[in-house]
């Protein structure tokens, strides 16, 4: 039996098993039969095992160069490095669906296993709900997009198939899609538990405790996946930025907003029994929006360089699935609406509850704004017969202030007390951060004055010029001020926590006291570290406001000015390896006449794709900025080189912030041991 047949059969069995688990779980819930429920749990484990088997089959097919399978033929090449053969698994549409099924099956098994005793009443509903979602995707594999589909007649071209696009043969292909998938697929788990809680009427915090870690896990991988996508674009594509508000980028971002809101809003329910309706709605929306994201990317409904291409059949199938999820989920919520009443009331706008509610509103608004703006062109074309495109400026105009609002809430939220913040508490909490924030703002405005003076060639700027400069950079300046404010709040929290720890145990060193905080109150201080990471990212993003871009055509020997630097064309090199031809430009980066680095932007012509050369970016990275060069075209006979040159101030703080954020997440998620001793 060949791989194609074995694989197809395993998918069919997978479908049947999944269907069985749904039936067993539903029956078990209805008849309250522990045996039937246990059977459904076992079926869930079996589904995971079989999904793993099917996945290993497709990987085997890649490694064995089984080009009788269409999917392998389209996305692989016998000459491809082993590494990329494995990643080709999720490189194309069919395989990515199987990857989805694999992840969902494994997550379902893990989630059920971890919770089957603690939440015995909810488990059957969790099982059938997760299995139903899984069934949809397995159904897609079986009936519409089988990755094991063989050719009827094996094509005659021997070992040279189309192969994976060279743009995809880099390390990011290994980590960006899986990270994003891990984030999306894992959102199904909190969703299933949320729905199970509503169905069984157990709407208090119990369900959230079981999914708290999952939600943080989802959020971390979603965030990481999105940032890796941005880093990939920045390092590989050569247009000098990391986010373009492209529809597929947006598809990934939209669920992130509601997931972030959910993550925070849960704390309010846990602490005060409020926002239950918000929380079920947010978890439904997060999951639903992740499917919307998949739909947008795969259906061809939106135009994008990233999208898989038009597929009306898939569009219809996903569209119906989306409607069913939305109507079904909110229908159940509507049925249980009264049960989801809050236990307590909002007492004051100066309360943590209010700040979190504002947080919910801002994030929800941002999610729907991005979603609306992303699909508006399609709507406009279908219903108004008017084709339009929406540019970055439209997104940035609304999203930047939204981001500033979030930054503000991030600083203010932890300082406010529950229920109502007293005046003394306000003073005590806000005084130092406000001072630091104000100082930061003044310093930044002064720096802007100095920079403007430099731009004017040493002349003192007039009030009008200064005003114009401030207006042009108002959001960046606000961001910097708020970064100062928020960092001060985080440091203040740590300082106070450490003071208390040392008071209780004077022999502790500062470091030990700090570590004790992280261990004992993991969620709180881990959360602060995550916030610190996010603040650093905002800092990095704000630098964009001061960026410089130049498009030039130079010959060897020419020099161009770029901000504080000079870029000198030192020459061109033509080289070749077994995969490609390369032309590299050597650019000297000079500052005050001194050579600080040599950039080597290049263009590569892969033999396999001679018409689609890739752009290789080169950067000089410092803490303060990147000097970034990408080569457009080059004429070897004249030496004439088209370059795009950028100064990207503070951009590396985005990546630094990401690492800090990951560290914070690791602390928050932590180990199993100390789950009780928190806050």
């Amino acid at each position, binding site marked *: 039996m060949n791989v194609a047949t074995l694989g197809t059969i395993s998918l069919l069995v997978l479908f049947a098993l999944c269907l069985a688990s749904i039936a067993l779980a539903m029956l078990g819930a209805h008849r309250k039969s522990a045996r039937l429920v246990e059977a459904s749990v076992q079926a869930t484990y079996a589904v995971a095992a079989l999904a793993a088997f099917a996945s290993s089959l497709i990987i085997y097919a890649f490694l064995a160069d089984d080009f009788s399978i269409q999917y392998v033929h389209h996305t692989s090449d016998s000459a491809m490095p082993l590494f990329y053969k494995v990643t080709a698994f999720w490189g194309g549409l069919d395989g990515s669906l199987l990857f989805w099924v694999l992840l969902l099956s494994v997550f379902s098994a893990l989630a059920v296993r971890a919770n089957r005793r603690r939440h015995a009443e909810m488990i059957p509903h969790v099982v059938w709900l997760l299995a139903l979602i899984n069934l949809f995707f397995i159904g897609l594999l079986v009936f519409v997009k089988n990755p094991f589909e063989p050719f009827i007649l094996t094509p005659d071209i021997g070992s040279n198939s189309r192969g994976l696009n060279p743009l995809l043969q880099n390390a990011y292909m290994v980590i960006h899609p899986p990270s994003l998938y891990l984030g999306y697929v894992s959102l199904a788990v909190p969703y299933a538990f949320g729905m199970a809680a509503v169905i069984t009427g157990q709407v208090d915090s119990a369900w959230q405790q079981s999914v708290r870690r999952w939600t943080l896990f989802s959020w971390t991988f979603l965030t990481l996946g999105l940032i890796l996508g941005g880093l990939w674009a920045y390092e590989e594509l050569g247009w000098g930025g990391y986010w373009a508000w492209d529809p597929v980028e947006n598809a990934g971002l939209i669920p992130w907003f509601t997931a972030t809101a959910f993550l925070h809003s849960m704390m309010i329910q846990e602490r005060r029994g409020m926002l239950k309706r918000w929380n079920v709605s947010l978890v439904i929306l997060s999951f639903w929006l992740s499917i919307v994201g998949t739909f947008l*990317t795969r259906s061809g409904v939106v135009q994008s360089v990233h999208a898989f291409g038009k597929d009306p059949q898939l569009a219809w199938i996903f569209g119906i699935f989306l409607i069913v999820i939305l109507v079904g989920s909110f229908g159940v919520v509507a049925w249980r609406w009264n049960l989801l009443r809050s236990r307590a*009331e909002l007492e004051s706008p100066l309360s943590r509850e209010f700040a979190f509610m504002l947080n919910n509103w801002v994030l929800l608004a941002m999610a729907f704004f991005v979603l609306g703006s992303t699909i508006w062109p399609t709507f406009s074309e279908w219903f108004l017969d008017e*084709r339009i495109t929406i540019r970055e400026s439209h997104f940035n105009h609304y999203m930047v202030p939204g981001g500033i609002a979030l930054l503000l809430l991030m600083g203010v939220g932890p300082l406010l007390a529950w229920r109502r913040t007293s005046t003394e508490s306000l003073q005590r909490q806000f005084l130092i951060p406000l001072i630091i924030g104000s100082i930061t703002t003044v310093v930044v405005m002064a720096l802007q004055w100095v920079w403007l003076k430099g731009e004017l060639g040493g002349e003192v700027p007039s009030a009008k010029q200064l005003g114009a400069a401030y207006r042009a950079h108002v959001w960046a300046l606000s961001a910097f001020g708020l970064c100062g404010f928020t960092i001060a709040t985080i440091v203040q929290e740590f300082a106070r926590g450490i003071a208390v720890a040392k008071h209780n145990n004077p022999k502790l060193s500062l470091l030990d006291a700090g570590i004790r905080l992280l261990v004992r109150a993991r969620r709180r201080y881990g959360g602060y570290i995550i916030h610190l990471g996010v603040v650093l990212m905002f800092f990095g993003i704000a630098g964009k406001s001061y960026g410089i871009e130049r498009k030039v055509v130079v010959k060897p020997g020419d020099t161009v000015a770029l901000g504080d630097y000079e870029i000198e064309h030192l020459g061109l090199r033509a080289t070749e390896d077994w995969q490609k031809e390369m032309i590299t430009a050597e650019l000297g980066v000079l500052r005050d006449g001194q050579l600080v680095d040599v950039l080597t932007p290049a263009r590569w012509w892969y033999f396999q794709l001679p018409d689609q050369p890739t752009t290789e970016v080169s950067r000089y990275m410092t803490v303060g900025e990147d000097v970034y060069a990408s080569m457009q075209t080059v004429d070897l006979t004249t030496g004439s080189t088209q370059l795009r040159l950028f100064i990207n101030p503070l951009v590396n703080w985005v990546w630094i912030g990401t690492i800090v954020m990951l560290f914070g997440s690791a602390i928050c998620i932590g180990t199993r041991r100390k789950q009780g001793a928190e806050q």
Partner: protein
Amino acid sequence: MALSTASRLGIGIISLSAVAFLVLSSPDEGVLEYVYADTVVETPEKFMDREFKVHGNVVEDSLRQNPDTGEYHFVIEYKGKRLKVVYDDLLPDTFAEGGEVVLTGRLDPGGGTVRSSEMSAKCPSKYEEEPGAPPPQAS
């Protein structure tokens, strides 16, 4: 909610003002009309005075570059209607004569030429449904 009426009113006013401010201060050119070259040729009056996106196929052998200014001159066509283009930026990686391009620009007062500094180009071989061809940043 146990918030006082004053608080609720205050919150409402602040929120609405913030949203109104954003909407009213919105720059005009965030949303662009997207048309094919034949529409522009047939009804140029509709496209004066504003930026728009025009989609067409680059006519073979029409590409010239002004050696002094670096500007590119070429012709795009759609359904037989031709439009001249003056493009003053660097050609995108995937530009090729015969291929499809989308230009963002303005129409010259004469109506027959588009001036543009922004172009995206699809290479002549279409991506379509090839799995693995475009980066699958999928969910």
